[in-house]
């Protein structure tokens, strides 16, 4: 199996794309439906996972490794985002001592 390098069938590319789509859709549903700030950020990470699956799938389809290289950049951005977002969440939590996103609705005005 290792490095067998069979060409990928269209069915398996469709399956990869469907897996990516389902994970992304669940991530969006969770981001919109949940009210806990930290779980909302977890849902954005879920959407990152979906994009990673799609990139690696297309890279495998063409035997092009730049898809995987861009996964490394996604990983970087995800790590930076997690560090900053969690610092902000801790700050917000210290002010209101709640994680409810709706306690900050006045920010939109």
């Amino acid at each position: 199996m290792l490095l067998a390098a069979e060409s990928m069938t269209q069915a398996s590319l469709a399956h990869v794309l469907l897996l990516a789509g389902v994970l992304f859709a669940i991530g969006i549903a969770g981001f919109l439906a949940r009210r806990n700030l930290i779980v909302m950020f977890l849902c954005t990470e879920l959407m990152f996972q979906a994009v990673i699956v799609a990139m690696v799938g297309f890279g495998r389809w063409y035997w092009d490794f730049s898809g995987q290289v861009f996964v490394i950049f996604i990983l970087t951005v995800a790590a930076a985002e997690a560090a900053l977002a969690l610092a902000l969440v801790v700050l917000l939590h210290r002010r209101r001592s709640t994680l409810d996103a709706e306690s900050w609705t006045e920010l939109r005005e």
Partner: protein
Amino acid sequence: MDPILPYIATAGAALGLLLVLTGRTMAARSSGGVVGLASLAWLFGMAGGLPGAAGDVAEHVFFLIFALTAVASAVQMIRQKRPVYSALFFVLVIMSVCGALVMLEAFFIAFALVIVYAGAILITYMFVLMLAQQASDSAHAGETPEYDRSPREPFAAVMVAGLVMATVVSAAFTGLGDLPPAAGAETRVQADAALLRSLPAQVQREASQAGVSLETEDIAQGVRVDGDQVLIDGVTEAGDPTTVHLTRPGNTSHVGWMLVASFPASLELAGVILLMAMFGAVVLARREIDHAERALARSAGRVAEDSESGQDA
């Protein structure tokens, strides 16, 4: 196949997700899970099946098992009322996605995801979750707060998710035929040979380990492809001409070489982003809320609580 069928399956999956999110009884939630998973299985079945799968059928079966686990734990992740369980189910999502990536022969990325995501990022999330939960009001200790128990606009959220899903479904069912055909084994061998041409020192080392001295001064010219082998001509110590079969580079060599050779500027930029994120996190975390502000915050919190309980009543 009727072109409308995939969209019906998508709608079924969305209905299942809605039931899982809003169902009041255990029976409603589990029937939602069954409906959703059945619709997804139908969708995957319509996308083309195993009988026609060229290559390794076992690989395809394992991919589908990992995909199923990933989707099921992703649903659990957005459904769980305790955020710590959400984080743990997300670890399970990452593990299953990594399994699927191994089936796509992206080994380095799969293990990097386990280490960086499941090992580092998720631990950070867990720390913040526990920090936040410990600080919550002790009167309701052990009870999940109201904002974790009731979803916000679940119907609209599932509608949006279903629309996104329908877009991807239309791409997966009608768009893939327009793609250039998949690259086969020969593309991979050519990529391996191209990588070895860029790494003459490695070719030299491998040849000298085999006791062969290379006759061509310019190794890049000598590396050639024969079938699924990468070869280079040389002479043995006895002076006979011979051919060295070079080890074909693996996934990690390809990713590493492409990272430094094709995207050096992006690599530098990634380093700058990480540095800036570190500075930002330190600046944000060190910010002290002074006492007057903290008292204000406490009263604001009480006001917020009062207004919320007023809404509930």
